[in-house]
């Protein structure tokens, strides 16, 4: 089970959060067209490694968090708020 360190509430069980998907996707501009929106809605990298994610703290402060999680080890390297910029750690050999 994940324990997520909410910037507002502190460390909480995964149970309190709702996963809201890949946070590296940003919504295209209104006029970006069908392909861009299709990619936004449907295309995912599904990486084996670091992944930028949205989590909504529905059981706590109801704020949206952005975090960096390793899909293999579940290690959470960074948690920030929705507007924080985050870059994924580089993995050697990948």
């Amino acid at each position: 089970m994940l324990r997520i360190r909410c910037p507002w509430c502190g460390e909480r069980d995964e149970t309190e959060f709702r996963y809201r998907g890949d946070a590296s996707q940003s919504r295209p501009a209104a006029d970006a067209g069908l392909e861009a929106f299709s990619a936004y809605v449907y295309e995912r990298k599904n990486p084996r490694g670091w992944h930028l994610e949205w989590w909504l703290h529905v059981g706590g402060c109801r704020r949206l968090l952005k975090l960096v999680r390793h899909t293999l080890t579940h290690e959470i390297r960074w948690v920030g708020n929705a507007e924080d910029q985050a870059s994924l750690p580089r993995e050697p050999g990948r």
Partner: protein
Amino acid sequence: MPGNASGLHLDTSASDIVEIAALRGRAPDVARIALERGVQLPALGRAVAAADHLALCVRPERWLILTPPASVGASAAAWQSACVGLGAVLDLSSALSTLEFSGSQAREVLVRSCRIDLDAQAFPVGTACATIMAQVAVILVALGSGLLLLTPASTARHFHEWLLAAARPLGFEPPSQRNDAAASDDAVGCGDKPS
């Protein structure tokens, strides 16, 4: 409650509850106005109890202010006119139920569903948090007198029943519960058959 082996006390009481949410950048203004009205708004995760109110903060730049019941919406209306343009003021008096749970074993009961560390060192008096218990949202506040729990009104009965069930193995047997049991036994005794 007298005659209770567990030393647990559970009280429900109505409060007027106002929520104030600050618009962007307006939290300091809201705090200033609150102070003028005699209310010190606490930091996130904290609660401040005063003689006539309790203020707590479990969501960033949002506060709940509990006061003794007055006329419908009066407290909210007063805050509303004080905070025009600074934030949203909502009357939540009917939305949240308050339970006060005290006694030496109160925390021992709550750890049967609460995922938050309620150890007195980790959750000292003056702490407040929003979490999930018995599958419903709960706001927990550590007061000098015990723990205050705020739960959504629609699930309050569910939560209350769960709490009583969790407390029972620790010897908690509220008198009202015994009365209910007696009443239902009587009903059966009277031959009142369901159709």
